[in-house]
């Protein structure tokens, strides 16, 4: 009975497959945000002056600050992956923690930015918004949709990063098996790329 050898099942992990799955998901995300970029471009072509005026009223400083925050958070995630590849678990955890802090800073800035707009009466069916020309109404509608959808992605990314940090802490992500970390990193970088496009479209195009 005890002489029966227990078969040792090698744990098969398809790293390329996992990464391909992530890239396919990112492709759908690119098309999701791409649709909004298309809508923005089409309406900007129709109401160039209104979009110009709308952009002038946005807080460019917060837009730029959030860009620096997201670019730096992207660097932190990229360093976290390299650190894990080199077996520096501690640095990976520090960088993931820093990225989560950056994500929260981004969202706090976004909260203050949105609240300032809302206090001005710029919100769906808001008194100030209704008095604006059609083009500006569309601009602010797109502004809320695009930054809102992006904000949800930042929130989801921060949650995924927190779970990943916990996996690293519990040794579920290791130097020889870090697909989860790599794929969360890919997601976070895409969130950064979307913002790279949102900054000039919404804040700088005025």
């Amino acid at each position, binding site marked *: 009975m005890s002489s029966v050898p227990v078969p040792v099942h090698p744990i098969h992990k398809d790293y390329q497959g996992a990464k391909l799955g992530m890239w396919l998901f990112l492709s759908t995300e690119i098309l999701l945000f791409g649709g909004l970029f298309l809508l923005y471009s089409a309406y900007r072509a129709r109401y160039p002056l209104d979009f110009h005026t709308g952009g002038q009223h946005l807080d460019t400083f917060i837009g730029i600050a959030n*860009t620096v925050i997201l670019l730096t958070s992207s660097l932190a995630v990229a360093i976290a992956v390299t650190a894990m590849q080199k077996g520096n678990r501690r640095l990976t955890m520090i960088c993931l923690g820093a990225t989560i802090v950056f994500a929260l800073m981004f969202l706090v800035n976004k909260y203050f930015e949105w609240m300032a707009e809302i206090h001005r009466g710029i919100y769906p069916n808001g008194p100030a918004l209704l008095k604006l020309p059609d083009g500006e109404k569309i601009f602010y509608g797109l502004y809320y949709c695009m930054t809102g959808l992006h904000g949800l992605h930042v929130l989801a990314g921060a949650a995924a990063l927190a779970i990943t940090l916990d996996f690293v802490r519990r040794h579920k992500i290791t130097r020889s098996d870090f697909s989860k970390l790599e794929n969360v990193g890919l997601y976070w970088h895409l969130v950064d790329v979307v913002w790279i*496009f949102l900054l*000039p479209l919404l804040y700088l*195009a005025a």
Partner: protein
Amino acid sequence: MGQTMEHAEEHGHVVPYRTLIVIWLLLLLLTAVLVYVSTAYHAALSVPALLTVTPLKAGLVFFYFMHLKYEKPFFKGLVILVLGALILFIGLTFADLSYR
């Protein structure tokens, strides 16, 4: 040992810290250029700058932070296919809009 070797190979390239920091500095620099051009030269240069600097920034993130430079051609092809489709949609929409 053979298994770890295989994993290392499958997991691909280790991008050095130095490269990542250089890319980050470039991204900050390009952002500064974009902000400067859009405030100092207004509309005349801001649109061309938007159309060149922004894709360049996205490209740096894709190639270095997302390791696309070191991936198999299939991954690069996938990204080109998606971006190509998006550009086609945008092109066709504008072809439609400009003849209305």
